[in-house]
């Protein structure tokens, strides 16, 4: 039977550093999935994940076991991703002429019939990535957690360390910013 998180953490705290490895192996897929929401390049993703686990190891004494280790680790992961976004902010404005042909095709099909736009999801994904990359770090974080991961405002507040009113304000501003980006992106041709 595999040792529980609590047992492994207790062993690490007593100085048995090797017991941290099963914890990494257990939770690294989730941390990788989280990091891939905010970074594209594989080397950046690996750096984020590595930083998350190093921080977790260094701060393990502050883990109070009031909530599951996974929740504590995911909070750390989200905050590390936010730090990454702040450092690597590159929100260059994109216009329609910057889009690839499949992205323009997708937008044209959407303009022709918004309901019938199920094919070429790769182009749509690229478009999403392009829009998300232009959002401010806090806007990208809140849109990802709220709209894509379907988390509640309370959950986001716990994950980010922001207050509930701040999450609401940032969500409102993020949606407005996203709308503005889409407007810039499409205004040359469709507005």
């Amino acid at each position, binding site marked *: 039977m595999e040792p529980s998180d609590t047992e492994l953490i207790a062993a690490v705290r007593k100085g048995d550093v090797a017991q941290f490895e099963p914890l990494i192996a257990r939770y690294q897929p989730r941390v990788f999935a989280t990091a891939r929401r905010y970074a594209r390049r594989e080397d950046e993703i690996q750096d984020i994940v590595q930083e998350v686990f190093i921080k977790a190891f260094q701060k393990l004494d502050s883990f109070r076991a009031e909530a599951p280790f996974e929740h504590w680790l995911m909070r750390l992961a989200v905050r590390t991703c936010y730090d990454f976004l702040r450092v690597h902010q590159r929100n260059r404005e994109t216009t329609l002429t910057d889009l690839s042909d499949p992205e323009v095709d997708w937008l044209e099909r959407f303009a022709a019939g918004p309901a019938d736009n199920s094919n070429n999801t790769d182009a749509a994904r690229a478009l*999403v990535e392009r829009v998300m990359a232009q959002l401010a770090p806090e806007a990208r974080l809140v849109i990802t957690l709220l709209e894509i991961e379907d988390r509640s405002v309370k959950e986001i507040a716990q994950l980010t360390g922001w207050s509930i009113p701040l999450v609401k304000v940032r969500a409102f501003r993020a949606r407005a910013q996203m709308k503005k980006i889409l407007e810039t992106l499409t205004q040359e041709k469709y507005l």
Partner: protein
Amino acid sequence: MDLDQLQQKLMAVAKASPPGDHVPYAFEKRIMARLIAPLPVDVWAVWGRWLWRAVAPCMSVMAALGLWVIATMHPEQESQNLEQAIENTLLSSDDVAGE
């Protein structure tokens, strides 16, 4: 173009394609190697840390010295009588001229 609808559509696409959770081979070994390896010492960081630690004791010493100086200071007799002190100051130039 309906931007709200476009926004919803794009969010639906993002929701429908969650990122993969695959992990590079032996990634946990790489992290463990980093954790076990001794960290290089950053001399400036250590110096900075010690400076910050010295702030509180230095402030305490400064405050204690300040209090001690105030407590041991004996105000001059003349200064208790403001009127006399002003008169002495004003007439001091006459005294010098008279000499």
